[in-house]
C-alpha cells in the first residue's frame, strides 16, 4: 500500500536523519585519516576475538603490524581519554598486539576487480604509493610500482630504524601487494633512468608518490666539507648496513622531532660513543613524541634544548665542535617560524653532525609540475590531480607528514585515477570530508562516574641492552595488558536509544539510519511505526531529545488515512472490536449524582 505521508512526518524524519548521532564516528575513527575502526577492533580485542580485530583493521590498513608500531596515531590525540584525562587509549599498541598475535595471510582479502585493460604506474613504494597501488589493483587495473631503491616501503623501510620497525614485519605486510598481483620495478629512478614522459606514454595514468627524500642541510659557517650529513641519508645507510661510513664516535644531531631521535638512537647503535641532540625548542615544546624522547634519554642521548648551531668548528678538515647560540623564541607574532637568537654562546664537541631538520620533495617531472614549500607539488587538494592529464600525486609529495596520512592521500589519488581511467568526473558524488581527518559531530557527554584509569604501557628492552643493536626494543602488549587496555575504551558512539528501546533494535542500527532510509524510499513498512510502544523512553535518553513516538504516531495517522480509516495491520481488528464495544450502550453507563 503506497501511503502519502504528511509534511509533519517528513519534517520530523529530516530532523532525526540529519542530527541523530547514531552513525557519527567516534573521535578516534574520525581523526584517523584512513578512518580505521579503532572502536570496533578494540572491542574485538576486549572480547578476545583477535582474528576479527585483524579483519577489521585490514578493511582499512594493509599494514597493521607496521602502523601498530610506528603510526603517529593522531587517533590517540583525539581519544576522549586524552581530552578528558590526558591518558589516551594505547590504540596503536593494541593494533600491533592484534597483528602480532593473529595476522596471517589466510585472513587477507586478495580479491581484485575484473580486468579493465588499463595500466597504471605508481612512483614510490612507500605507504602512499602502496596504498594507491592496492586500491587501483582492486579496481581491476594493472599496476606497476617504480622505486629507485632496491627495497620496498619507502621511508618505512629506509627512514624508520629497524629497532622501531623490524624489516621482517614490513616485508611480510608488503607481500600483500604481491598476492594482489602488483608488479615492481625496483632500482629504477623515475626522472633519471626513466622519465615521467615515458611513463605517461606507456601507462594510462601515473601516481607520483616518491616522498620527500632530500635531506635539508642549511648553509652554516664551517659546514662545507666532511663529517656533516643529513637524516635521510644517514638513516638510509643505517637501514642497509646498520653503519654509517662518515660517522665518528661523537655525534651531534640537530633537530627536535622524531627523526632527530631516530638519528641519535641509531648513531649509538651504529657504534657512536656519544650522541647529543641540539634543538631550538625548549624541553616542553619538543616536537618529538614523548615516548621517543624518553627512550632516547634512557639510552644515554644527551639534549641541549633551546640552542641554535651558529658555526661548525673544524680541525684538519674534520668537525671538532659547534658553536651554539641561545634561542629566545621560535615563532613571530604572525605565527611564522622565525627564530630569535640571544647573545649567550656555548660550545659542544663533536666529530659528526647530522641535520634532522626536515626533508624536501625532489622534482622528478623535470620542471613540468610546479612545486611549493618543501618541494611539494601543486595539486588540487580534493582530487590530487595535477595540470598534467592522468598524473596524480600522493603522500609526502602532496603534503602529508605521517605514514597514515600518506596512505589516505594514496587512497584519494587512486580514487581520482580510477575515475579518470573510467572517464568519470573526478568530483561528482564524492564526500571529500570523509577522505581526510575530520571532526566528528558526536557530542554525547562522558557517562557520569567515568573513572580516570591509567594507560597501560608495553615493556621496553633494557636500555643498556637495546642501545647495542637494532633489534626491536618495544616488546608489545601481553594478553593481560592488552585486555586491560582495551577495556578502558569509552566506546564513544551514541547508542542511548538503542540500549533503551527493544523495538528499534528489531528494525535498525539507529534512528538516523531508519529515517534516512524512510526519506530515501518515502515509504516504511507499517509494522515499524505500529511496533512503537509510544512510551517516549527514547526521548528521555536521547541527547537531542528526538520525539520518535511523535514521528511514528504521525505515520500511523497517514496509514489510517490511506486505508479508509483503519489500521493496515490485521491484528488491529481486535482493537477495533474492543473500541466499538467500549463505546457501545451495552458496556457503558453514565450515572449522575444527586443535585
Amino acid at each position, binding site marked *: 500500500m503506497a501511503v502519502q505521508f504528511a509534511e509533519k512526518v517528513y519534517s520530523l524524519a529530516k530532523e532525526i536523519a540529519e542530527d541523530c548521532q547514531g552513525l557519527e564516528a567516534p573521535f578516534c575513527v574520525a581523526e584517523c585519516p584512513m578512518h580505521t575502526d579503532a572502536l570496533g577492533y578494540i572491542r574485538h580485542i576486549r572480547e578476545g576475538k583477535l582474528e576479527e580485530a585483524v579483519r577489521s583493521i585490514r578493511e582499512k590498513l594493509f599494514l597493521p603490524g607496521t602502523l601498530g608500531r610506528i603510526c603517529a596515531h593522531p587517533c590517540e590525540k583525539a581519544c576522549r581519554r586524552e581530552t578528558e584525562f590526558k591518558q589516551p587509549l594505547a590504540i596503536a599498541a593494541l593494533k600491533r598486539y592484534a597483528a602480532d598475535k593473529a595476522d596471517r595471510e589466510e585472513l587477507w582479502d586478495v580479491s581484485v576487480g575484473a580486468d579493465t585493460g588499463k595500466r597504471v604506474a605508481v612512483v614510490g613504494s612507500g605507504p602512499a604509493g602502496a596504498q594507491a597501488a592496492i586500491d587501483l589493483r582492486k579496481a581491476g587495473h594493472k599496476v606497476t610500482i617504480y622505486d629507485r631503491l632496491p627495497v620496498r616501503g619507502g621511508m618505512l623501510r629506509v627512514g624508520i630504524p629497524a629497532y622501531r620497525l623490524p624489516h621482517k614485519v614490513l616485508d611480510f605486510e608488503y607481500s600483500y601487494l604481491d598476492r594482489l598481483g602488483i608488479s615492481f620495478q625496483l632500482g629504477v629512478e623515475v626522472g633519471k633512468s626513466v622519465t615521467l614522459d615515458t611513463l605517461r606514454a606507456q601507462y594510462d595514468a601515473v601516481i607520483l608518490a616518491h616522498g620527500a627524500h632530500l635531506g635539508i642541510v642549511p648553509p652554516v659557517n664551517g659546514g662545507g666539507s666532511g663529517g656533516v650529513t643529513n637524516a635521510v641519508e644517514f638513516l638510509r645507510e643505517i637501514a642497509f648496513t646498520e653503519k654509517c661510513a662518515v660517522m665518528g664516535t661523537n655525534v651531534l644531531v640537530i633537530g627536535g622531532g622524531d627523526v632527530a631521535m631516530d638519528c641519535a638512537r641509531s648513531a649509538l647503535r651504529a657504534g657512536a660513543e656519544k650522541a647529543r641532540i641540539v634543538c631550538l625548542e625548549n624541553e616542553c615544546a619538543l616536537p618529538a613524541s614523548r615516548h621517543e624522547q624518553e627512550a632516547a634519554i634512557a639510552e644515554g642521548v644527551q639534549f641541549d634544548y633551546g640552542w641554535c648551531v651558529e658555526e661548525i668548528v673544524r680541525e684538519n678538515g674534520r668537525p671538532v665542535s659547534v658553536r651554539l647560540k641561545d634561542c629566545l623564541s621560535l615563532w613571530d607574532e604572525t605565527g611564522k617560524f622565525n627564530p630569535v637568537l640571544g647573545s649567550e654562546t656555548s660550545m659542544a664537541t663533536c666529530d659528526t653532525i647530522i641535520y634532522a631538520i626536515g626533508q624536501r620533495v625532489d622534482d622528478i617531472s623535470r620542471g613540468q609540475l610546479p612545486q611549493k614549500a618543501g618541494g611539494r607539488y601543486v595539486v588540487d587538494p580534493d582530487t590530487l590531480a595535477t595540470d598534467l592529464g592522468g598524473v596524480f600525486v600522493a603522500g609526502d609529495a602532496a603534503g602529508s607528514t605521517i605514514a597514515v596520512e600518506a596512505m589516505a592521500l594514496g587512497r584519494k589519488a587512486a580514487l581520482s585515477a580510477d575515475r579518470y581511467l573510467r572517464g568519470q568526473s573526478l568530483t561528482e558524488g564524492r564526500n571529500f570530508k570523509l577522505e581526510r581527518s575530520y571532526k566528528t559531530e558526536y557530542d554525547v557527554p562522558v557517562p557520569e562516574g567515568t573513572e580516570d584509569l591509567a594507560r597501560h604501557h608495553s615493556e621496553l628492552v633494557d636500555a643498556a641492552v637495546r642501545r647495542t643493536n637494532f633489534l626491536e626494543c618495544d616488546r608489545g602488549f601481553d594478553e593481560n595488558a592488552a585486555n586491560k587496555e582495551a577495556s578502558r575504551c569509552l566506546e564513544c558512539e551514541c547508542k542511548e536509544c538503542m540500549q533503551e528501546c*527493544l*523495538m528499534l533494535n*528489531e528494525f535498525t542500527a539507529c534512528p538516523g539510519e531508519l529515517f534516512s532510509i524512510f526519506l530515501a524510499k518515502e515509504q516504511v513498512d507499517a*509494522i515499524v511505526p*505500529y*511496533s*512503537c*510502544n*509510544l*512510551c*517516549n*523512553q527514547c526521548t*528521555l535518553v536521547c541527547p537531542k531529545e528526538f520525539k520518535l*513516538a511523535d514521528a*511514528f*504516531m504521525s*505515520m*500511523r*495517522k*497517514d*496509514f*489510517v*488515512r490511506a486505508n479508509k*480509516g*483503519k*489500521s493496515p*495491520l*490485521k*491484528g*488491529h*481488528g*481486535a*482493537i477495533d472490536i*474492543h*473500541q466499538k*464495544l*467500549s*463505546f457501545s450502550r*451495552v*458496556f*457503558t*453507563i*453514565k*450515572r*449522575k*449524582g*444527586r*443535585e
Partner: protein
Amino acid sequence: MAIRHGFMPGCSLPSYSPENIEKTIAYLRGVYPELSVVQKCCGKPTKSLGQVDLLQERFGSLIADIKDCKVDEMLVACQNCYNMLRESDAFTTISLWERMPQIGLPQEVRGKATNSDVVFSIHDSCPVRDNHAIHDGIRWIMQELGYKTAEPERTRDKARCCGFGGMIVPVNPELAKKVMGRRVQEMPTQHVVVYCAACRSSMLMGGAKAWHILDLIWGPVVSQSSQPPENVLASPVKAWVNRYKSKGVIARSIK
C-alpha cells in the same frame, strides 16, 4: 455553588475487577455524596491506531456524557484517561491517586499490612512520568497501608513502559513479550504493585506477581504465600463479563 465530582474507572479496571469499582465508589461517595460515575472508554486505543476522525467522534461522546452529569472535577483511575481528559477544558481532571492523600484512606484499611512480609516493587505508569503528585500519592497509599516498597532503577519520571503501550500487542506480540519480560527483570523484588490494570496484566505476562493498588487497599493483606489475582484481561470473555458487571455495580451504587 459547590463543586460536583465525578469518577471514571476507565476500561481495563472495570474489565479486571467489579469489586474494586464497587468499593472505590462507596469510598468516594463517603467524601463526595453527589458523586457521578461514567463508564466509557476515553478513546486512547483509537487515538493510538491513528484514527483521527473516529477519535474525535468517540471522545466527543464521552465529554458529552460527563457534561450531562454536570461534573466540575473528574477523578480518574486510569493514567491514559488522565491524559486524554485533560485535553478538555469543560471540567478539571485529577488522578484518584493524587486525590487519595488529600482525602485520606478509610480508618479500617490504614496500617492493615504493617505485618506483611512482602516488599512491593513499584511500577509507575509511563504516560504520567511527569506527574510527581501521582507518584507520591501511590507511595503515600502504600505507606498508609503499611506495605514496604522498593524502587526499580528506572522509576517515577524515568519509568519504563510495561510493554502494553502503543497497541503493539496484537501486531507484534513477540516484541511486547520481550518488553514485558525486561520490565519485570529490573524489579528489585518478585512482588509488584501497579496502578493500571493493563500494566498488571503485562507484569503477570512478564513473570512477576502483580497486584493493582486497589487490590491492596480493598482486598486481603498480601503475604509471601499469596497468589496474585488471575490475569483476567488475558481472557476476553471474562473481561467483558466483568465490564458488564461493573456497569451493574455503578447502576446499583448511584440510583
